């Protein structure tokens, strides 16, 4: 009997002992094991410091695993139909044992994943680990970010409460401002002119099958590329990486760190999910929109833009420009050797701070001016709003950004890499400020209100 067990265990690890004890067999264990195959057999010791990666990529992997487990559990008690969906949610919270906990875990992991993936992206960007040879892995990462967004968006509808119904209605309606194809795409996604039963089945299929499969395919690719491209190595300003940087075996050095980190994170997640319930409002009522009808929090930045720009610009032009920027970024040749250095250089750090401050201050100022002082469509009544509330303010903003660039390059004599970093910080801070305003400072009728 024990021979048989032994035989099975050996077949899993392809003949190696499961817990190798010397470095050689540890490395071989990595090479021969499906799960560990995503790791290199040895890593540079400084690269796996917690204060370099902050464990963010790994945390995203962990959250996806939690999402799959809790998501599959939810599938057993949920039917994607307007007649049952909302009741299923109520049952989950009152009848089914641990139903609330499982729902909470799924809900909060999904939301946390957006934050974590964005932070991971920022870590990569701020340590300049996105240029050659990692450009393509950056693009894979961007796809993962978009897929994470899509997973959250499709999941948002499933509880079929007021919050779900109207957030999706407003979100998909944005598509109608895409010229030519937008309305068709919107109809296709909704399966008709409005959010209804067809939309729910569409979203369900996307949420439980299509998006997770794509996510896992690209995630494996992404992890494999991190391994192939070689992990970036942290260093201080003005130092170079020595030829003989210490390299340690993945087992146990990296694996044990990952395990400890994962356990701590699971503990935090469980505590949070036990204490804070996922929201559930009244059942969806297509006849009555709530006031205010707010979008999901991660779309609040765009919702805030919608209050200031013609929808074509707020929902299409500006986000697409941002996305194109992120796609091009890793391919712009750096003129500062900053790989592995936080914010490039001493000047880079100051300019990043400057950009952030300018982004916050400028955005607050512009929002206030637009709210209380300036009404472009009223000032220019003869122009269509796509000009007066679209091209004209956008041109102004781009002009301001160009001025800022000239300031960095001329007055501060910044390298291109430093100026790019500062500009990125400005735009990022601006987007975060818009999101905060949308979440906390908008009340009934979308008027500016104090959150207190």
């Amino acid at each position: 009997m024990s021979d048989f067990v032994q035989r099975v265990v050996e077949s899993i690890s392809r003949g190696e002992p499961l817990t190798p004890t010397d470095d050689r067999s540890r490395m071989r264990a990595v090479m021969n094991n499906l799960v560990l195959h995503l790791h290199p057999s040895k890593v540079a010791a400084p690269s796996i410091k917690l204060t370099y990666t902050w464990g963010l990529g790994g945390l995203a992997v962990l959250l996806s695993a939690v999402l799959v487990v809790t998501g599959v559990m939810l599938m057993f008690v949920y039917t994607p139909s307007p007649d049952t969906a909302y009741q299923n949610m109520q049952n989950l919270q009152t009848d089914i044992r641990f139903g609330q906990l499982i729902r909470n875990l799924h809900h909060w992991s999904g939301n946390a994943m957006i934050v974590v993936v964005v932070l991971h992206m920022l870590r990569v960007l701020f340590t300049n680990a996105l240029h050659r040879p990692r450009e393509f892995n950056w693009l894979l990462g961007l796809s993962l970010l978009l897929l994470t967004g899509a997973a959250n968006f499709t999941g948002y509808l499933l509880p079929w409460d007021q919050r779900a119904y109207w957030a999706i209605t407003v979100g998909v309606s944005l598509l109608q401002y895409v010229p030519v194809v937008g309305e068709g795409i919107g109809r296709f996604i909704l399966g008709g002119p409005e959010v209804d039963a067809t939309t729910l089945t569409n979203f369900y299929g996307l949420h439980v099958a299509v998006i997770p499969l794509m996510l896992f395919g690209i995630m494996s690719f992404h992890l494999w590329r991190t391994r192939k491209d070689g992990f970036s190595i942290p260093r201080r300003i003005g130092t170079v990486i020595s030829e003989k940087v210490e390299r340690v075996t993945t087992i146990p050095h990296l694996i044990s760190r990952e395990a400890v980190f994962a356990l701590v994170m699971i503990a935090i997640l469980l505590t949070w999910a036990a204490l804070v319930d996922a929201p559930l409002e009244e059942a969806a009522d297509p006849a009555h929109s709530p006031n205010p009808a707010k979008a999901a929090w991660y779309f609040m930045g765009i919702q805030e833009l919608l209050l200031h720009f013609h929808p074509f610009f707020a929902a299409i032009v500006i986000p697409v420009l941002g996305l194109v920027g992120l796609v091009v970024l890793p391919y712009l040749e750096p003129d500062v050797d900053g790989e592995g250095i936080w914010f490039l250089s001493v000047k880079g750090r100051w300019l990043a701070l400057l950009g952030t401050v300018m982004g916050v201050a400028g955005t607050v100022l512009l929002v206030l001016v637009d709210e209380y002082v300036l009404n472009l469509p009223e000032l220019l009544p003869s122009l269509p709003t796509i000009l007066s509330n679209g091209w004209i303010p956008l041109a102004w903003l781009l002009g301001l950004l160009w001025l800022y660039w000239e300031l960095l390059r001329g007055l501060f004599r910044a390298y291109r890499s430093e100026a790019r970093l500062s500009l990125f910080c400005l735009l990022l801070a601006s987007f975060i400020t818009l999101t905060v305003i949308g979440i906390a400072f908008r009340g009934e009728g979308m008027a500016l209100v104090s959150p207190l």
Partner: protein
Amino acid sequence: MKRRNFLKASWLGLLALAGGESAFIGLKFVSPHVDAGEFGGLFDVGAVDDFPSGSVTPFVNGRFYLVRLNDGGFLAVYRQCTHLGCSVPWNAEQQQFVCPCHGSAFERDGEVLNPPAPRPLDLFALTIKDGQIRVDTGKRIERDHADDRYVVYPEATA
């Protein structure tokens, strides 16, 4: 053309064809189709005389308001806001449609009183026959401005 290249091109061509076919089948499979009888179909809403001039009557299943203008003409106004799709309630006090989502306001005939809505509320095709009103929710009419082009008047009563 060399035989090798020809074969290569054929393979690629066939592959593209197979891909195209699969995509077509997939798209058709998931494309929306309209069921008759529900929203998207015909609604018989009643007799002309049931609706006094200046009235706005909601039809929840048809998702429209039957509006009778002060001059006696009829319009079927779709309740979906042209800004971002919220359902617009009729505010009897202010005598206008006010959208709860981002504050757009519309006149009784759908004309925009207050942006951000970019165009008047949409209409559904409406016909009157023998004093009976019928609304076709499958025929949505988008307008740049609300003029009286689409207003339907009852036949003159003898």
